[in-house]
């Protein structure tokens, strides 16, 4: 397996770095959400998405025909590496650009592609994802929201409740899963459709998260409408469409996460040494074991990300490595942050820089083992791939 990037990818990297050096504003480098309101964060992330688009650097893995960069695996690696290296904020629409867009490209009509893709990439329309519900979390097929066809008005009328809708209060559109019919199995009769957020039937109620900030929401849908031409893929067969969408959530983000982990681990160690009484050169002759473990974990995640990219570049299947790497990343990253905050001692609990930033990261990291399939669900997937027998009724 060859982990090196091609000369073409390195050339691409050089051009991207040149642009970043010229265009990425100083105050957006090493960006941290800590200390800003979420309104401010959203403004920065939206403006950054627009800037990337204006410069012709948005949509790295989108085909050129849809306005993207059409990057291959190696260029994509270089692209992610450079964004992480300068600590740029995440573009506001990155969830839709990475998850919904490939789904529209695969299942959507020509009209849908022309209508929705350009404003998504330009950050003129912001998106949110309406899958989870109170009774449908890990068991997504338990969803109960209904969408009833009204052929007269050419719309679906949507009723039900969505939960954990990230960025819903800023979104113009939502991609929703709802029941359009009854199937003999729970996975049948579900459809995915695009629903405007600004309408009377959509009531968005923000929920505060663990950091105190309101970033996700409950959506109460009462006769909210979606145009019947805005169903993505076959009506009643949205389960496979949704699964395709979710498969995009796991893979490509790993390299970003791996690099961020490595970078934060280096910075965390610096901050820790900065707290040692006589500065970094004092008597302590070894880094504490928990920080060595974090150093190793960060390299393991990085190695897994590079292995997955190398496999993808060779056209080989990644299979269950996607679940394995998500587990190794999310759990290792949490261990690192929790050990770092502990290693800071009493300082670690104080509200001054740099400690407060690390507390914020630790709290945020707890989501990594919950979204995109919880750790337990990943272990179920891995066990199944090993051929272990299905669980009985016990």
């Amino acid at each position, binding site marked *: 397996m060859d982990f090196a990037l091609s000369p073409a990818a390195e050339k691409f990297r050089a051009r991207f770095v040149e642009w970043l050096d010229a265009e990425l504003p100083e105050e957006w480098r090493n960006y941290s959400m800590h200390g800003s309101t979420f309104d401010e964060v959203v403004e920065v992330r939206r403006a950054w998405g627009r800037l990337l688009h204006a410069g012709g650097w948005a949509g790295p893995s989108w085909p050129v025909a849809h306005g993207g960069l059409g990057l291959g695996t190696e260029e994509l690696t270089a692209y992610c590496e450079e964004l992480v290296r300068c600590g740029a904020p995440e573009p506001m629409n990155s969830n839709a650009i990475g998850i919904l867009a490939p789904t529209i490209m695969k299942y959507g009509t020509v009209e849908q592609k022309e209508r929705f893709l350009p404003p998504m990439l330009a950050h003129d329309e912001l998106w949110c994802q309406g899958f989870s519900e109170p009774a449908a979390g890990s068991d997504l097929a338990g969803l109960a929201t209904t969408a009833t066809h009204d052929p007269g008005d050419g719309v679906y009328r949507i009723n039900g409740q969505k939960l954990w809708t990230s960025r819903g209060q800023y979104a113009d559109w939502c991609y929703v899963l709802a029941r359009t019919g009854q199937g003999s199995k729970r996975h049948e009769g579900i459809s995915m459709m695009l629903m405007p957020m600004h309408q009377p039937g959509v009531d968005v109620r923000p929920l505060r998260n663990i950091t105190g900030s309101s970033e996700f929401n409950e959506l109460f849908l009462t006769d909210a409408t979606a145009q019947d031409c805005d169903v993505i893929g076959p009506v009643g067969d949205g389960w496979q469409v949704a699964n395709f969408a979710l498969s995009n959530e796991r893979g490509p983000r790993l390299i970003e996460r791996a690099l961020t982990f490595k970078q934060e681990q280096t910075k965390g160690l610096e901050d820790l040494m900065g707290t040692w009484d006589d500065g970094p050169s004092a008597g302590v002759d070894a880094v504490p074991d928990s920080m060595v473990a974090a150093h190793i974990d960060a390299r393991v995640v990085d190695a897994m990300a590079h292995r997955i990219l190398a496999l993808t570049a060779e056209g080989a299947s990644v299979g269950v490595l996607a679940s394995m790497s998500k587990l190794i990343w999310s759990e290792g990253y949490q261990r690192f942050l929790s050990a770092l905050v502990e290693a800071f001692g009493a300082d670690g609990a104080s509200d001054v820089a740099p400690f407060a930033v690390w507390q914020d990261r630790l709290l945020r990291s707890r989501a990594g083992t919950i979204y995109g399939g919880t750790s337990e669900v990943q*272990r179920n997937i891995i066990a199944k791939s090993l051929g272990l027998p299905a669980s009985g009724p016990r």
Partner: protein
Amino acid sequence: MRSSLRSFLSRTITESGYEQICSSDSGFDGSLWNQLAGSGWLDVAAMSSDGDEVSAWPISGVHMGEEFGRALVPAPVELVTGFLLPVLHRLAGFGPVLDDSTFVDDLPAVTIEPALALIRAGAPRPGGLTVDTTADGTLSLSGSVPSVQFAASARTLYLPVSLGATWALARIPLDQAGVATVSTRSIDPGRTCATVVVTDVSVPAADVATTAADGEPMAAVLAEALRSYLLVLDGKAIGAAQLLLEKTVAYVTQRTQFGVPVGSFQALKHRIADMATSIEAARSIASYAAWQVAQGHQDSTEMVLSSRIFCSEMYRNVCESAIQCHGGMGFTWEQRLHYWYKSALFDAAVDGIAVEDLGRLLRKSA
């Protein structure tokens, strides 16, 4: 390449053969050794430099190690393949002629312990050996060298020695006056060890290598071979753990309790999923580290140490989980899981890289 090595090893090392060797007095079988040494398989480092279907050394070393770990070889194959042969290839005219019968009837004893100081930051551990150099390059040695694998059955000891500012590899015949080997059984029944005690033994300059054929100082040659040896050990851990995972999946699928296969219980599934995940994680970091070494990457020592610590812990944990998932069966001698568990404990302890070794390296480079 790997599948033919795998079938060679499974033909050569049978379960009953392994047990016989482990329970014999010497813990060593000369005819098995001759088959291994005469097979050409131990010199993969040489193959990868000129062969084309073999991947670059030490990437191929990780793969070799995986097969050694699966088979669990009761002979010092990792040291010879990973360390000794790569060093000897760099030294022209030193030691035996390297061909298909090198080491047949001539088991080498190798220790890397003294050389670990080259890649492990911090003060060298106090050694039990004093080394004096005379003007003509003769070394005079007194003291003891502990935990040398299979030393009691070997004819020659290859010993890295620190000469203050420089390093050397000394070649010491073990059947000479002034040399005694004191056998010790280790926790690993497949790895007998000995303490080699030397009293005023002089090693003529011809048996002391201080530079490579191309003039590179011995310190660099030894450090390079150490990295490749540690990667072969990583491979051994990965191959062994993969086999235990397969055994465990097979066992929990056929063993029933409460009317269902025990492998259908989620508590076991999740534990086994963690075994598989840690094995793939280990495979990833070991191949990435090996690739960095092959590329001459500047951080490669730190990556090799990271990989060694991770793979070593992974191996031990996978063994412990395998035993637990087998229930009482896992605790029996006959199930044979204990052989791998003991090898995991041995590899972590002898020539092991400790978390604090990396801790010091990171401290120093901060």
